[in-house]
Each structure stands twice: as structure tokens, then as C-alpha cells.
């Protein structure tokens, strides 16, 4: 057995051991440390496989016997998982002790990581589906162990229901592939005909798309991710939806055997709707965690845009740009995992320190919690897509891919590229708006709660986890070109090296993005200008409020900052507001104001569907009489009916 295979087996074993240690009394911190070490080992194995390019373990097969192996794409996702999970587990070492159900949640974290590793390394249908289901169920259990109130139960219920309904697509796609013997062998599906290919493509899109969070199948994400413990939210948002995208890439890109144009356009459309919808509904949230969950939907949309562009390039025969767009998607997978994990961990730290994450009642935390605040600031700038951080690098790549799609005939493809390009630019600007608001309300300004004034930085472990992720954001932003050629080699039709290796992003047909010189220039210029500014003689003055004294009631709220956008997009967002004025004795005694932006899809799609489903279920319920004799009668009828069918030769 090669060193890498031994290493991966050791890593998996250690992960299981870590979970068991957590279950022992007093072993929480040690167990989490062991889990972190095992994830680091698995990540190292993944990177070696990715860079080396050869496969360890079994290859894909259409039989039912369990088989496991790691190939470069699995290695890449394992590396991303490790990059996200190791700092998260270090964070959890100081975050979990003291929270309710800590040991069970810690043990279930290990089970969750094991199921993620299992999905990534599964090489046959049975193990993939088994670990897929486990991956869905374990976080639900962990969430319920930590919190039991009604809202959480309803959120977990909708999470399980929607994921399973949509996840039927995964089952259909994989079983159809296994039936045709096409797992790992794209030519087999080509031989099966376009009907089979279309069925597999659509089923996979629906199934994996539900788990990834594409709109309109996303409704579970903003319900489930916020109620999980912070480190589990980080893992779910960072990795679980990426593993769904891994499955999508395997089926649509590697096993489909064709690069249909309709699939590329569908991915572009879904990506665009998810981007814009995700960020628009994030803007109207007033609590930090649902806001971050909606941003996950937006970023998954960006990845879908890149994947769609890659398919369209492959369809048009431009393999260089197909590889570049594919690499852009994978780079955004990495970047989003890192900065989303960082943001969720920061939110968890804030919640621990202050007690609530209501955006209108935070403030001034950058000064009082400098480490957490600084890391959160870096994460926010990264997700807003600002140079020279990693979010801008992958967004720049996706923008370039879409722009180059717009150069193509036929007209439909080119125009879709142009519309998608405009949509992505809008999304970036909306994300900027949203995160300026978040930074301002959480980190800057004056504290609006008593707990904010006395907040302090969390213990070292939590700080270390967040600092490592923030540094990764910076490093990946400064040298994205070092990883891009390796990712481009993972593209389906890439034969041999596609891109040369530079520190920055030097691509044909662009003016090159060189983040390292840019960052250096910006830093040097800023420092130079600060020096030029000299000793800043500043007179303290109250901020200008037309001369009236500045009181806390004048503070801006989340709804106030997004009001211009809400007014402009009224037709899309349909905000509702109620103003109640109580008068007494000829004077106004009190004014109550409630504003609410309903989730459009919830009202127009989900509720009618659920109502119809429940009505149909209560109709079918009449069959369930509760009487054992009726059931036996059904059984007898079925047996006799089948016998008649066999006898008359209808059934073979």
C-alpha cells in the first residue's frame, strides 16, 4: 500500500478515534484536537494527489460493492475540506465547552466530517448514496441536540424535507448511471442515447442543486444554517454545499459524455437567479446569521455561473477557456469555503460575547474585540469581492469567463453571457452594499447594547482559528496564479498544462490581474500618503447632525441603510409595513412600526405546494384505516392480482 493510501486510511481512522474520544468524559478538547490533526493529514494527502495527478485506491465503478479511492478532483475537495475544517475545529475547542450538548455535538462533528470524506472518496453508487444520506442526517441531529425549541425543530424539519425531496434527483441520476454502467465511463452514457443523458442531467441538476442551494430549491438553507452551532454552520456552509457541487461536477462534467448547450445555459440562468436572489434577500435580513446563509446562496450562484460558462466553452470547442472557467469555479469553491467559514466563526464569537446577533443592536465591536473584529473585517472585504483579497480573484476570473462567453455566436449564447455578466456585476455591487452595512452595524459606530460595551475578545483557540482563515484569505488573494494551473488541469477535457504558472492571473485575452504588485502599490501609497499627511492636528467635534446633539436614537439601522434599494426594487421585494398610531386625549400616545420583506418564493411556491401536498396526503390517509384486517385484505388483493397478471402473461 502506498504512503498516500496509508496516510488516508490513518486519517480516517484518526477522525473516528477523535469522535470517540469526544464521547468520553473530559475528552472534548482532546478529541477535537485529534479530529483537527486527522483532517490536516487528509488534507495533505488530498494536496499530494491533486498535485501529483495519480489516483490512489479504487477507480469509479458501476457495481454495488463498496469501493473507495482518491483522484485529483476528490483530492482538491479534500484539501478544501481540510483548509476549512482544521481552523474550525481549533475554534470549536474553545467554543464548544460550556454550550448545551457539547460532547454530543463534538462527536457528531466527527461523524459529519467522516460522512463528507466518505462522499468525496466513494467510488460506487452504494457508498456514495449511503454517505450522502448520512451527510444530510448528521447535522440535523447535531442541531437538535444543541437546541430544542419550536423554531429550531421546524427549521430542521423543513431542511430534512426539502433536501430529501430534491435529493431524490441524486438517487435517480446515480442509479440511472449505474444501470447504464456509466459511472466513471462517459462513453457508456453516450451509447445509451440522448434521452438517458437528458434524464441524468436534469435529475442531477435538481438533486445536487437542492443540496447546494440553487434557487428555487434553496428554502432550507436560510432556515437550517443559522440555527446550528457556529462551527457546524461554518462546516455546513463551507463544505456541505461544496460537496453537493462536487457531485454536480462529477455527473454533469465527467460522466455525462456530452457538453450540451442547454445545460450550460440552464446553469447560467440558475446561477444568475441564485446570485441576485440570494444577495437581495440577504440585504433585507436583520440578523447576522440568516444574512450569511443567503450569501452562501449567492456564492453558489457564482460558482454555477462559472460552471455554465465552462460548459458553453466546451460546447463551442474552446478548451482553453473551458479549463479557465472550470478553474474559476473551483477557485471560488475554495475561496468561498474559507471566507464563509471565517464569517460564521466570527458571528459565533460575537454571539458568545454579546448574546445576540440582531444587527440593529450591535456596534463598536472592532475597538473592543480587535482580533475577532479584524478577522471579520477581512472576511467581509473578501466576500464583497474587493481587491487584493481572494474573493476578487475568483470573481474577476468568473467575470472574464462570462465576458468571453459574450464573444460567441449564436446570438443566444453571446447575449446570455452579456446578461450574466451584467448580473454578476450587480451582484458584486449588492454584496458590497450588504457588507458595508454589516461592517458598519457590527464593527463600527457606537455600541447599542450594554453587552457590546463590555465585550472582550474570545479565548486564544477561537482567535487562532479565525486568524488562520483570515490569513488564508489574504494569501490566496495575493497569489491565486500559483494554484490556478493545477485547478485548470482538473477540467474535463484538459490534456496537459493549459496555463503557465505566474503569481498573478495572466490569461490570454485579458490585461492580467497582478494582485501582489497591486497590494504592494496600495500599501506603499497609503503609507506614503499617511506620512505626507504628517502629524494630524485634529479638533474633536460632534458629527454633523444639523447642529442638534447626537444621541443614540439618531443611529442608523439596517433597514434605514438599505431603504433606497428597497424603494427602487419594491416590485421585486414587495416589502410590507404597518404603522399603528395610538391616540389619546387628542395627542399621539405611541406609534408602532413593523416592516417585513416576505420571502417571495415561500409565499408563491412553497406554501401552495405544501398545502396541496397536505391535502393529497389527507386524502390518501383514508386508505390507512388502522385496522389490521384491512391491511391484510390489501395484501391478499395484491398477491392475487399479481398472480393473475403472471398467469395471463402480462408480467414476465
Amino acid at each position: 500500500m502506498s504512503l498516500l493510501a496509508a496516510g488516508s486510511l490513518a486519517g480516517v481512522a484518526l477522525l473516528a478515534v477523535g469522535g470517540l474520544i469526544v464521547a468520553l468524559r473530559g475528552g472534548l478538547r482532546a478529541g477535537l484536537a485529534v479530529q483537527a490533526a486527522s483532517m490536516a493529514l487528509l488534507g495533505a494527502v488530498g494536496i499530494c494527489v491533486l498535485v501529483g495527478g495519480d489516483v490512489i485506491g479504487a477507480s469509479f465503478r458501476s457495481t454495488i460493492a463498496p469501493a473507495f479511492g482518491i483522484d485529483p478532483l476528490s483530492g482538491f475537495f479534500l484539501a478544501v475540506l481540510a483548509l476549512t475544517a482544521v481552523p474550525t475545529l481549533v475554534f470549536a475547542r474553545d467554543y464548544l465547552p460550556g454550550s448545551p450538548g457539547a460532547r454530543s455535538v463534538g462527536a457528531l462533528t466527527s461523524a459529519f466530517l467522516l460522512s463528507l470524506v466518505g462522499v468525496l472518496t466513494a467510488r460506487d453508487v452504494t457508498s456514495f448514496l449511503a454517505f450522502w444520506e448520512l451527510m444530510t442526517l448528521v447535522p440535523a441531529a447535531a442541531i437538535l441536540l444543541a437546541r430544542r425549541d419550536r423554531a429550531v425543530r421546524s427549521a430542521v424539519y423543513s431542511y430534512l424535507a426539502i433536501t430529501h425531496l430534491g435529493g431524490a434527483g441524486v438517487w435517480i441520476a446515480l442509479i440511472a448511471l449505474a444501470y447504464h454502467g456509466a459511472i466513471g465511463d462517459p462513453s457508456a452514457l453516450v451509447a445509451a442515447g440522448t434521452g438517458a443523458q437528458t434524464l441524468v442531467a436534469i435529475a442531477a441538476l435538481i438533486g445536487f442543486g437542492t443540496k447546494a442551494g440553487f434557487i428555487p430549491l434553496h428554502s432550507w438553507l436560510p432556515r437550517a444554517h443559522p440555527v446550528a452551532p457556529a462551527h457546524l454552520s461554518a462546516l455546513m456552509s463551507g463544505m456541505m454545499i461544496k460537496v453537493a457541487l462536487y457531485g454536480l461536477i462529477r455527473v454533469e462534467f465527467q460522466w455525462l459524455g456530452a457538453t450540451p448547450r442547454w445545460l450550460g445555459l440552464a446553469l447560467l440562468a440558475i446561477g444568475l437567479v441564485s446570485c441576485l436572489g440570494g444577495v437581495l434577500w440577504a440585504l433585507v435580513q436583520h440578523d447576522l446569521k440568516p444574512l450569511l446563509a443567503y450569501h452562501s446562496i449567492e456564492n453558489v450562484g457564482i460558482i454555477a455561473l462559472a460552471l455554465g460558462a465552462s460548459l458553453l466553452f466546451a460546447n463551442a470547442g474552446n478548451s482553453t477557456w473551458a479549463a479557465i472557467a472550470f478553474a474559476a469555479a473551483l477557485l471560488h469553491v475554495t475561496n468561498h469555503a474559507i471566507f464563509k467559514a471565517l464569517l460564521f466563526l466570527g458571528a459565533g464569537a460575537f454571539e458568545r460575547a454579546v448574546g445576540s446577533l440582531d444587527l440593529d443592536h450591535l456596534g463598536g465591536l472592532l475597538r473592543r474585540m480587535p482580533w475577532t473584529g479584524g478577522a471579520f473585517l477581512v472576511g467581509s472585504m473578501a466576500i464583497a469581492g474587493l481587491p487584493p483579497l481572494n474573493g476578487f480573484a475568483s470573481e474577476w476570473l468568473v467575470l472574464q469567463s462570462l465576458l468571453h462567453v459574450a464573444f460567441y455566436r449564436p446570438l443566444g449564447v453571446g447575449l446570455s453571457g452579456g446578461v450574466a455578466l451584467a448580473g454578476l456585476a450587480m451582484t458584486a455591487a449588492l454584496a458590497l452594499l450588504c457588507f458595508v452595512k454589516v461592517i458598519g452595524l457590527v464593527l463600527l459606530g457606537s455600541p447599542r447594547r450594554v453587552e457590546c460595551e463590555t465585550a472582550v475578545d474570545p479565548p486564544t483557540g477561537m482567535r487562532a482559528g479565525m486568524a488562520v482563515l483570515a490569513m488564508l484569505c489574504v494569501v490566496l488573494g495575493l497569489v491565486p496564479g500559483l494554484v490556478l494551473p493545477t485547478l485548470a488541469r482538473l477540467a474535463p477535457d484538459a490534456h496537459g498544462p493549459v496555463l503557465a504558472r505566474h503569481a498573478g492571473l495572466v490569461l490570454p485575452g485579458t490585461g492580467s490581474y497582478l494582485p501582489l504588485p497591486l497590494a504592494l502599490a496600495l500599501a506603499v501609497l497609503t503609507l506614503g500618503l499617511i506620512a505626507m499627511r504628517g502629524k494630524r492636528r485634529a479638533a474633536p467635534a460632534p458629527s454633523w447632525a444639523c447642529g442638534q446633539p447626537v444621541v443614540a436614537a439618531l443611529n442608523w439601522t439596517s433597514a434605514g441603510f438599505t431603504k433606497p434599494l428597497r424603494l427602487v426594487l419594491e416590485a421585486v421585494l414587495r416589502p410590507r409595513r404597518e404603522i399603528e398610531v395610538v391616540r389619546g386625549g387628542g395627542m399621539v400616545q405611541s406609534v408602532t412600526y413593523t416592516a417585513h420583506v416576505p420571502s417571495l418564493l415561500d409565499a408563491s411556491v412553497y406554501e401552495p405546494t405544501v398545502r396541496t401536498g397536505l391535502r393529497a396526503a389527507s386524502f390518501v390517509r383514508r386508505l390507512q384505516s388502522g385496522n389490521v384486517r384491512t391491511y391484510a385484505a390489501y395484501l391478499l388483493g395484491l398477491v392475487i392480482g399479481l398472480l393473475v397478471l403472471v398467469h395471463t402473461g402480462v408480467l414476465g
Partner: protein
Amino acid sequence: MTGVLVTTMLGLGLAIIVVRRRSVGIALLAAQSLALGTLALNLASGRSGDFWVAGLLLSKAIILPVLLYLLVGRTPEARPVAAPAGPMVRLAAAGAVALCAVVLIPPLGLGAPHTEHTAVALVLVGLAIVIARRPLLFQVLGLIVAENGLSLLAVSVPGGLSYVIEFGALFDLALIVTVAAAFVQRIHSDLGTGDTEMLRGLRD
């Protein structure tokens, strides 16, 4: 000898559908199981496993009815439970089901065709007992009759089926009957009757 025993089993199974009293039903079941045991002994072809199976079937013929009889003693019914249809109707329906089985089953090739058909008919008659009789105990009786049919099929295969299967099936049956007996007792003590129609109230 074999043919007579087999037909007797079928007749006894049909009779269970008709009788009114539970104790009579148990007696009929005991007779059927005894007939099955005797048949097994008759067909035993000299392997020790076959004799074990025959012995076990005979002991089943004794133990289970005794258990059920004790249960009947502990669960008295205040009023006779009304049947969904008259005894002649029930008999006719059960006979029709048995006839369907005989006609429709393709030849399985496991043993003598007469035995085969009877065995399958017994299984379906067992199901019919479950459907046609309301008292709880008859559901258990129906299950045992169906199992008798399966055992008949297994025993009549020339060369004998692996006795592991037989033992396993018998063990399952013993378990099920024990659990069912416990439930019957509990339901009787809670509801005062073993009428399955009354059990519908438990659903909601």
C-alpha cells in the same frame, strides 16, 4: 397417507374460518399442526436434521396451542363478537381464495403438485382468516396457519430444505406469537374486548 394428511390440513384450515368459539379454533389448529408433524415424520428421509424438524413441528403442535389456550382463559369476552359475514359466506370466500391459489400458482417444481397447491392454498387461507375474523386471537391463528402452509412446502421438498431455514422460521414464529399474545392480553385489559373493529379508535 401423505395425500390424506395434506387434505386434512386444508380442511382444518377452512374450518377455522367457520367456527365461533376461540377454544375450538385453537383445537383445530392443534390438530392441523399435529397432522403437519406426522407428515414430516412420514417424509423424513433418514437424515438426523429431518427428524429434528419433525420433532420440532410436533412440539409446536403442542406448545403453541397450550399457550394460546391459557391466553383465552385470561381474556374472557363479555359478549360474543359479531362477525362481518355469516359462516357460510366466510367459508365460500375462503374456498374461493383457495381455489384461486390452486388455479393461478404456476408449478413451482418443489414437490408433489398436490402438496404444493395445498401449501400455497394454506398460506392464502391463513391470510383469509386474518381478514375474515374479527376477534384478535384469530389474527394469530391465521398467522400460524399461514406458517403451517410454508412449513408444509418446506417439508415436502424432496431432499429436504436446509434445516437452518426451518429452525429460523420456527423461531420467528415463536417470537411473533409470544409478542402477539402479550399484546392481546394488554389490549383486552385496556379495551375490555379483543374486537379489532374497536381497535380503530387507537389510530387517532
